[in-house]
C-alpha cells in the first residue's frame, strides 16, 4: 500500500449532511491520483469484483483471462467441473501464462522458459529441472500458481477477490442478489454470453460509468435523439413486433425508480410501455407458469439496470448486457460489453436482441456513444478547482428508507428506495459505501 493512500483521509470528499439537506461529492473523486490509487488497492484489489459469466468457462479446461485491479488472473474450469481462479503470472519469472483472452487447454505451458501448469495450477514440469535445482528444492508445491483469495459464483455470475478476508459473496451482493435473480431466472435453460465483444475507452473516471448506469435523469435529454431516430426509422420501415424500439420511456414520463441495494450496489427501473416488443416476451407463458407474479411483472414490465459494485453493470433494458468496467487511471476507463441472452430463445428473438443491443449499447451504437461523450464532458468540466461540488440531493425529500411496495412485492431489502428514476438518492448509498471502503479497507463485514 502506498504511503499517500495510507496517510490521507478521504472523508472530506463526501459532504454527507443529509439531515441538513446536504449531500455533495467533491469532483476531485474523478481526478485525484491519490484517490485513484486508494480505490485500486482497497476497492478493486481489496474485495469482490465481477470476473465473468460461467458460460464463458463452460467445459473443463476452458479459461478466461481478466484482471482484478492491476493483477492479471484467469478463471479455469477444472476437470471435476468446479471453478478455479489463479494469479496469471508464471512462478518462474512472472510472465502472463494465458496465450489468449479465452481458450481451452489441458495444461498451460509458459511460453518463456517452458514451465507447465495443470488445470489446477500445479507446476507439473520444469524444463531441465534436475540441471538447475538441487533435489531438495524440487519439493512439490513450491512453484504452484497461487489461487486468488476468494472465488464464488451467484446464479452463473462469477466473482473473485484477491483477499480472502472478505464477506461471503451472498452477503456482499446484499439486495442486488434479487436483481441478479431477475436476469438469471427468466432463462429456462440458463443464460449464455453471445459471441462478440466490444471494448472501448472512455476518457472519464470509472465512477462516472457507475453513476451513468442508474441515472435516469439524463435519458429524456441525452437520448432524445435516439428516440427521434428510431421513431423515424419505424415510421419509414413500418417496423413491427420485436423490431420496434421501446422508446416510451425516453420520450415521456413513466413509472420508474431507483434503489440503494447496499454495499454500493444500485438499481434503476422504468416501466415498459410496449413490453411485447421485448425478446423475452415470447417466454411469457413459461414465466407465468414457473415464477411468482411479482417476478414475472418485474421481468417483463420493468426495464432494469443493475450496478454491482464496483465493476459490473447487468442491464435488462432494450437488450441484455454485461458491462465490465476497468479503471486505467483517474481519467481513463476501459469498458467491455457483452450481450447475455437466454439459451434456446427463438432465432427471431436472438436476432432482435442483438439488433437492439447494436442500436443502443455500443460505442458504434446510437446511445452509448452519446453517454460516453457526456461522461467525457463531465470529466473535463471537473478538472478545475473552482468547480468543486456535485450536488446529489435531487429527490431527497421523496427518498424512502428501506423497501417501497415494488421491493416488498418482489422480496428484497434495499437500504433506500427512490420513487423516480430522475432522483439521485441511490448515489448516497454508492458514495457512502465507496468512502467506507476507502477509509476502512476491505469492506469486511
Amino acid at each position, binding site marked *: 500500500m502506498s504511503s499517500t493512500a495510507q496517510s490521507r483521509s478521504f472523508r472530506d470528499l463526501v459532504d454527507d449532511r443529509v439531515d441538513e439537506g446536504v449531500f455533495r461529492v467533491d469532483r476531485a473523486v474523478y481526478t485525484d491520483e491519490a484517490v485513484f490509487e486508494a480505490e485500486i488497492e482497497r476497492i478493486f484489489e481489496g474485495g469482490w469484483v465481477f470476473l465473468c459469466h460461467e458460460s464463458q468457462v463452460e467445459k473443463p479446461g476452458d479459461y478466461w483471462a481478466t484482471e482484478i485491479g492491476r493483477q492479471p488472473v484467469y478463471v479455469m474450469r477444472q476437470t471435476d467441473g468446479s471453478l478455479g481462479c489463479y494469479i496469471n503470472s508464471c512462478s518462474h519469472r512472472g510472465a502472463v501464462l494465458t496465450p489468449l483472452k479465452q481458450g481451452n487447454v489441458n495444461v498451460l505451458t509458459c511460453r518463456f522458459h517452458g514451465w507447465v501448469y495443470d488445470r489446477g495450477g500445479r507446476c507439473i514440469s520444469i524444463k531441465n529441472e534436475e540441471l538447475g535445482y538441487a533435489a531438495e528444492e524440487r519439493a512439490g508445491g513450491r512453484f504452484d500458481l497461487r489461487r486468488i483469495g476468494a472465488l464464488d459464483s451467484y446464479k452463473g455470475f462469477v466473482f473473485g477477490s484477491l483477499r480472502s478476508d472478505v464477506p461471503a459473496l451472498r452477503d456482499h451482493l446484499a439486495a442486488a442478489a434479487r436483481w441478479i435473480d431477475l436476469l438469471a431466472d427468466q432463462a429456462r435453460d440458463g443464460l449464455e454470453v453471445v459471441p*462478440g465483444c466490444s471494448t472501448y475507452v472512455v476518457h472519464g473516471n470509472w465512477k462516472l460509468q457507475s453513476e451513468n448506469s442508474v441515472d435516469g435523469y439524463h435519458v429524456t435529454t441525452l437520448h432524445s435523439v435516439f428516440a427521434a431516430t428510431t421513431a423515424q426509422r419505424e415510421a419509414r420501415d413500418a417496423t413491427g413486433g420485436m423490431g420496434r424500439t421501446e422508446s416510451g420511456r425516453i420520450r415521456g414520463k413513466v413509472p420508474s425508480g431507483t434503489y440503494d441495494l447496499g454495499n454500493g450496489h444500485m438499481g434503476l427501473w422504468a416501466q415498459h410501455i410496449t413490453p411485447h416488443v421485448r425478446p423475452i416476451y415470447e417466454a411469457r407463458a413459461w414465466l407465468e407458469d414457473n415464477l411468482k407474479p411479482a417476478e414475472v411483472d418485474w421481468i417483463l414490465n420493468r426495464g432494469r439496470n443493475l450496478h454491482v459494485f464496483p465493476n459490473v453493470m447487468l442491464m435488462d433494458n432494450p437488450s441484455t448486457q454485461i458491462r465490465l468496467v476497468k479503471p486505467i487511471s483517474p481519467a481513463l476507463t476501459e469498458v467491455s460489453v457483452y450481450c447475455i441472452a437466454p439459451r434456446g430463445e427463438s432465432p427471431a428473438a436472438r436476432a432482435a436482441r442483438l439488433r437492439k443491443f447494436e442500436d443502443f449499447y455500443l460505442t458504434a451504437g446510437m446511445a452509448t456513444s452519446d453517454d460516453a461523450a457526456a461522461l467525457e464532458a463531465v470529466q473535463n468540466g471537473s478538472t478545475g478547482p473552482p468547480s468543486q461540488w456535485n450536488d446529489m440531493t435531487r429527490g431527497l425529500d421523496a427518498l424512502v428508507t428501506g423497501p417501497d411496495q415494488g421491493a416488498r412485492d418482489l422480496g428484497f431489502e434495499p437500504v433506500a428506495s427512490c420513487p423516480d428514476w430522475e432522483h439521485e438518492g441511490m448515489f448516497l448509498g454508492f458514495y457512502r459505501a465507496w468512502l467506507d471502503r476507502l477509509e476502512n479497507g476491505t469492506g469486511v463485514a
Partner: protein
Amino acid sequence: MSADGIDAGLEREVAALINREAMLLDRRRWNEWLDLYAEDAVYWAPAWASEEETTTDPETQLNLIYLKNRGRLEDRVFRIESRQSWASLPLDRTVHVIGNVLVESAEGDAIEATANCIVHVYGKKGAATRGSRYDFAFRRIDGALRIARKKITFIDDRLEGPVDIYHL
C-alpha cells in the same frame, strides 16, 4: 482484360466508386454518399469474437454495426445532422485513404471487390489512425454501379471515441 480475366475498365470503375465513397464521407456530402447504396444494401461491421476472429453470423452474433437497408444508413445521417447527438457534435474530422482495390469476381452485373482503408481521425481527444478491410458487393442499377453490400472488418479492437459511418 487484365491477366485474371477482369475487365480493366470495370476495375477502374470499381476503384473510382470506392474512392468516391471515401471522398463523400470525408466531405460530409451525406446525401450523395447515400445515393451510392442500393435500396436493400447491407452494411455490416462485425465485432471481434476473439483476438483472432471476428463474428461471422450477424443473426446470432454481436456486431459493431449491422444495417439491413439503406434507410438504416439514412438514420445515421439523420442523427449526425440533428446536431443533438453529443458524440457527433463537433463531428470528428476524417481522411480516408483507400488502397489495394481488387475486383475479385464479376459475373454479369454482380461484382465483388476487396479494398483496404486507413482512416485518419482528428477529434476532441486528438488524432488516431485506424484500419479497415472492406469486402464489397456491387450491382448495376439503371446502368450505374451501386453498393449492394459493404462488410467492414475494423481491425481496431479497443475503440477510442465513437465509431460511426464516417469513421469506417
